[in-house]
Each structure stands twice: as C-alpha cells, then as structure tokens.
C-alpha cells in the first residue's frame, strides 16, 4: 500500500499502545507545535520508546507490513478518502483501520442501531427497512446480535453497508458473528479506529458509537431499553445535529422504552422506510403489493387485528381447527408478512 509521509506518521503514532487518545490527538496541532507538545506530555519511559522508534524506518516498515499482511487498509485524517462527515465531529478518529470497499466512506450514510434483545417481528422489520434504505443510503451499524446484525444482513446484498467495530481486527466479538463480519468485509466495509491488537473492552463501545453517529446523516433506533447502548448513539447523533428516527412501541415493552423516550423529545416516528425518505425528500417506490388469496387475507387481517396471536386463538376466532391454519400461516411467513415469535405465536410485520 502506498501511504504519504503524513499518513505514515499517524499510523506509526497509533501503533504505540502506551499513548493516550488525547496525546495522539496533539498531532493535529500546527506542524511546529505538535512534536514539542507531544514530547512535553510524555513520561520518560514512553518518551524513550517513542523517540527510539518513531522515525525509525525499520519500525515503520514493520508496522505497515503487518497491516498489509492482515489485509487492513488505513485511512487517516490526512487521507483523501477520509469521510468529510467525521471531520465535523468533536473528536474525529485520526486513523480508520478498514477492510473492504473504501469508497463507501464518502457516500451518504444512514445508521440503523438497536438493542441486542429485540423482538423477532421488529428484527424482520429492521432487516426489511435496511434493505430499502440501501436505495439511497449506505447503512451503518455495529456488529452485535439482534438489531445490528439484522440491519447488516438486510443491507448486505446491495453491498452498501458499513459495520463499525469497537476493537481491533484481530478479534471477533461476539464470536458467533465472525462469519457476518467477514461477509460485510467482503461485500461492504468494516472499519474501526483501533489497531488490530486492541481487545474488546466495555468502554470502547460508547466511543465507537460516536463514529456511527458521526458518519450518518440520520439514525434510526429500532429498539432500545432504558440503558441501551443505542441511546448513546442517539445522544451523539443529536449532539452532532443529525436527524433521529425511532420505531414506536406499545407501553410496557422493555425493549421499546428507549425508543418511546426518544419519540417524546427529538425523534421522528417511523413506521416504514417511506417515513425516512419523505423526511429527506427522496423518492421511494414501495415494492409491488403481494398478491394474497382470500384465505390468506382473512388470516392476515385476524393477526393484524390482534397485534400478535397464538394459532389456537386465531383458529377460535376463525372457527376452524388450529392445524388447518398451519399451511396458510406458512404461506404468510414465506411471503414475509408475519413473524414467528415462539410458542406458536405470530405477529404481523
């Protein structure tokens, strides 16, 4: 990979684990001041290590070679690929370690975030929304189970998808999502501000959320408990003056309390992707309506009316045997109009 000198300076600086984020950030000061103030801030031990290695070509070559070998491409604050949107936030990451399609960094982004514990029907809705959002946006999210994974899965096919990690590329967290991370890297883009050897730690996640919020034009919160990390992203987005959207929830659903809180104060209510596109003045042709038989219509209507219902309840309502409904239920499920919630309970999407 070819990097400019300035880029290499930053990459090298980031390779010193001993430096704090604030110390690394001093590099953004004027050319004359930066070395002096950095040196001033260092303790003797760290100073010696940095001094010995910083301008050492062998050391620099080793750092770059290791990144190359891992297939990691760095985009620094001084690179031309660096996303303009991130330059406008208070603490922009100086180096973005990237795997995948770098051109996505400067596209119009929209983030979809949510809780790990999201209701199954909301997961399906989230996935559908993410798919539709890719018509105008690149979908940005984290990598956790639940809402994040659903959003990534929905956007994956179009390739317009960015996943922001809160740790280095040497790690996979949660471990089950390793295949997903690899798929996103292959079709879209995975980025992180941490060098490969940084392990996942609790406090890194809120910091990561600022990148998700900063990259995006707007943020959709699909689910959030009272203390959900999705609310941190939402707070950051609001702080940066980005537009917030949220799904509405019925009273008493724990995974929706955060969403309703946002709706009360700042967020715009979203029922479908059209609500988001409308806000930005983008056009959207919804997918052609799915043709339904009379049987399917009656059943879907019954499920819609109940919100969510068990098969025996539906059978009782429609005056039939529960197992006779099963083929129609399967058809609706295949057509993506209802979601299976467990215990033979279904909900309309």
């Amino acid at each position, binding site marked *: 990979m070819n990097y400019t000198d300035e880029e290499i300076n930053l990459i090298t600086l980031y390779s010193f684990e001993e430096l704090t984020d604030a110390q690394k950030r001093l590099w953004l000061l004027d050319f004359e001041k930066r070395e002096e103030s950095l040196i001033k801030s260092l303790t003797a031990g760290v100073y010696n290590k940095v001094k010995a290695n910083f301008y050492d070509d062998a050391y620099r070559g080793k750092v770059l070679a290791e990144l190359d070998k891992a297939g990691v491409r760095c985009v620094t604050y001084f690179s031309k690929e660096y996303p303009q949107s991130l330059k406008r936030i208070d603490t922009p990451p100086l180096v973005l370690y990237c795997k995948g399609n770098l051109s996505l960094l400067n596209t119009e982004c929209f983030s979809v975030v949510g809780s790990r514990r999201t209701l199954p029907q909301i997961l399906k809705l989230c996935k559908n929304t993410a798919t539709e959002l890719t018509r105008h946006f690149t979908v940005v999210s984290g990598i956790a189970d639940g809402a994040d994974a659903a959003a990534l899965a929905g956007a994956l096919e179009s390739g317009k998808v960015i996943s922001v990690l809160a740790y280095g590329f040497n790690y996979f967290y949660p471990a089950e999502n390793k295949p997903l991370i690899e798929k996103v890297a292959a079709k879209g883009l995975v980025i992180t501000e941490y060098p490969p050897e940084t392990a996942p730690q609790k406090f890194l996640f809120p910091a990561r959320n600022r990148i998700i919020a900063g990259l995006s034009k707007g943020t959709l919160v699909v689910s959030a408990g009272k203390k959900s990390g999705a609310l941190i992203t939402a707070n950051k987005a609001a702080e940066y003056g980005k537009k917030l959207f949220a799904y509405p929830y019925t009273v008493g659903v724990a995974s929706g309390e955060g969403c309703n809180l946002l709706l009360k104060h700042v967020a715009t209510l979203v029922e479908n992707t059209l609500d988001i596109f409308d806000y930005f003045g983008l056009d959207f042709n919804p997918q052609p309506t799915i043709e339904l038989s009379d049987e399917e219509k009656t059943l879907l209507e019954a499920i819609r009316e109940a919100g969510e219902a068990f098969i025996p309840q539906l059978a009782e309502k429609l005056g039939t045997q529960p*197992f006779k409904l099963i083929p129609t239920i399967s058809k609706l499920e295949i057509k993506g109009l209802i979601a299976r919630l467990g215990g033979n309970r279904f909900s309309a999407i």
Partner: protein
Amino acid sequence: MLSKITSFALCGLDGVPVEVETDINKGMVSYDLVGLPDAAVKESKERVRSAIKNTGLLFPVNKITINLAPADIKKEGSQYDLPLAISILIAGNQLTVKADGTVFLGELALDGTLRPVTGILPILISAKAKGYTRFVVPAANANEASYIEGLTVFALNSLKEVVDLLTGEQTFSPLSQRSFKAAVSAQKYNYDLSLVRGQKIAKRALEIAVAGGHNILLAGPPGTGKTMLARCIPTIMPDMTFEEALEVTKIHSVAGSLTEEGIVSLRPFRTPHHTSTVVALCGGGNTKVHPGEISMAHKGVLFLDELPEYTRRTLESLRQPLEDKVITVARAGGAVTFPADFMLCASMNPCPCGNYGSATLACRCTPAQVHKYRSKISGPLLDRIDLQVEVDGVKYEDLSGESNEESSAEVKKRVETARAVQRVRFEGEGNLVNANMGEKQIKKYCRLTPECEEVLRTAFETLHLSARARSRIIKVARTIADLDFSEQIKPEHILEAASYRSYEANS
C-alpha cells in the same frame, strides 16, 4: 455315579444350552464347581446344600465334581440352583430317574422353595428353536412362560415338588397356554390424549409423528404440558403384535423388570434421567451385558426430557441406534446385539430461563446464552428428528372455546389407517414407515408436482432452511398426505410440514 442335567445360559437375548454334569466319587469330602461360574453360581453351593437338607434328602458327603459345559461360556445368574440340586441328587443315587431332555431353571431358597429368575422367556424361545420341549421353571415365572405354544412347562413351587414330579409321586399339570389378547385387554395405559386440554397443534404433530414413525422434539416454556403430551404417545401407537410383544418381553425379561403379567403388551415408555450415562442408555455392564434404556424402549417411546441437559456424549451415542434400530454392545466377554427400534421424543425449553417467546414473561437470557443452549444439540442428531414442534405458549384458560378433546382411541384409528397405507406402499421393502425412507424411496414415493417444488423452493429461500431439512420435510409431507388419504403430496402438505421445523431455522 455321573449325571447330566440340562439348563440354559443367557447371552444377550439368546439362550445357550448348558449341561450340568455331576460326578460323585469316594474320596476326601470336597465340592468343586468348574466351567466359568460367576460369584452367584459359586455361591449356589450353600443354597443347594440347605435346600436339599430341608427337603428331607441328603447332601452327599463325598468328593463332588460339577462341570458346567460348554466350559468357555461365562455362567451367570441364579437359574443353575435347581439343575445343580437335581444333578447332585441323581448322581448321589437318591433319585433314580432319567431327566434327559428336560430343561431345569430356578433359584433355590434355603428351605427348598423355588424363586423366580430373569430371562425365562428368551430362554424358552431359544430352547424351543433348539428342539427342547419340556421345562421346569419356578411358579413365579409361570405367566411369562405360558405364552409360547407347543411346550410342556411345569411351574413348580419347591424342590420337593420337582422331586415328586420326577419320581411320579405326585402329578402336576403343565401350564396351559395363555392368550395374548387377554393380556392386552387386561393392561391399560394410564394416560389419554383427552386429558390434555388445548395444545391442538402439538397433538396434531404427535399424530403425524406416530403415523409416519418420525421422531419428534417438543419445545416450549416450562409447565405447558410437554411431558404429559409425550406420555400420551404410546396410547396412539398401533397395538403391538404378539411377535413384537415377545421381542419386547425378551428384553424386559433379561433386565428383570417384568411385571406379574409376564408379558409386555403395552408399548414401553422410558424416561431416562438426564444424568444417565452412555452405558445406562445404550447398554453394557462388566461381564453380563444388560440392555440399556434404548433397548428397553424397543417398539415404544424413548422420552428425553430437557434434551440439552444431557451430555453431548450421551446424545451422540443415540445417533447410530436411531439409524440402525439395533445397538451392538461390545465388551471383553464378547459383543451382544440388542434391538433398539424406538421412537424418540425429546422435549426442551426454548432457552435456559424458559421464557423465550413467552407472551407474558420476559426472557432473561442473552442471545449468546440462547445460542449456546440450542447448539448443544448437534446437527446430525437434529437431522434424525423429523418434527420439531413448539407447544402453545398460551394458557388454555385464555381460550374460551368449548372443550371437546379427542380421545387417544380416535387418533389411534387414523394412525392405524395411515400405517396401513404405508404397509401397502412398502410391501416387500422391509421398512414399514415413512420415516425410514432412504433417498431412493423418497424419489420413488414422494414425487413432487411442479407446484409443490415451487412451494418448497420458496420456503427454503425465505425460511433459511438447511439442505438436510429438505428430505425431512418431504418425508413428513408424505405422512401428512397419508393421513389425508391423498396419493399425491399437495402444496398444503409441504407447507404444514415446513412449519414443524422451528428449531432449525435461525430463530
């Protein structure tokens, strides 16, 4: 003088004739028992001595040598007491009768009464095949011994009676043959489907599973009646034929778990606890190989409650018997094959806390915990469970419908009709049920119309089914079509079959 008496040893489920040879000579008083006797057989000496004395006869005070032939088979169990006693009496000239051709089996009490022994039925069956027709067995084994025709079996109470029988001092009438039908009607299941309220979908799935011989997994929150449903499975299975009952009784006889009735006429229902070891499940033992739970469930139901709680090793050990319907247990003493043609019914909670997907209670598990819990059951095992059904998470009280629950007898009728259809279909092919179809038979008997192919294809794409789910769905659809009296598999059969796979999809 020398005497020879016939008895039988058990090797797995087969009886092997054993000659008890006794030779009494003058010389130093001694008692030598050779021919690989185990501890229980060696100890028989003291029982035999006391029993003979307390019957009013004399235990010879001479040099006694007893050989159990063939000498290379381990002799285990207590059934040699009676043949030993008779053999000693004849050799000691206290009984001057011929007992050739009669098989003696029985344990002796010190006072000379006969105690029951295990494995009578398998021994009688093997002995009959080898041409033996006259038997003396303990009275307590009479029921078990009376189901086989063409044998003369005397069921006696004491050594005294046996001696009297041989000398002709008293006459005894041999056992009359008992009818299997009477035994069947005498035994009743304690459960009935009509006792389970609601759960129509799970009941339907049970019907399909039994009709096609499929294995089934019931998943649902605690307290929704999974165990109760499982216990009803034998009640809707077709009645056992006499041949099946004999096969099952053989196993239970060897395990020593026969009831008073003497024959197992009801389909067994076995519920091994989840702490069970591989040996407990598959069979084994140090010298004598005992049948495991899967053999005890032969022709019946093996119910594994809380499936993920079993150790992985235990569960994996089920894979091969599920496929082969037999289990071969190899031990140092030799390999024994037990039949293990059982229907597997398993139950599990949807997640460790049990509330995943519940309408009213919140699940406290993290996604990783749920994932870990479910992944305890390996793909290859799930592969062999054709129906994966969720029980309704709704309380029956929440439904206002009038309660007209079908009884097991009504469901059983439909099951029997579907089984009859399958018997005709697989005539001459050996496997009697849809679940046992191989790829070749699926191609032959489950031809799909283009419409069905299309339904199956879209179902696969949208529901993210694995490739191996395909043949499972087709097999289940075949059974649903059989229950529907439909020669051709229709799209609705495929759709219904596709809905019974909840735990494979990435839910």
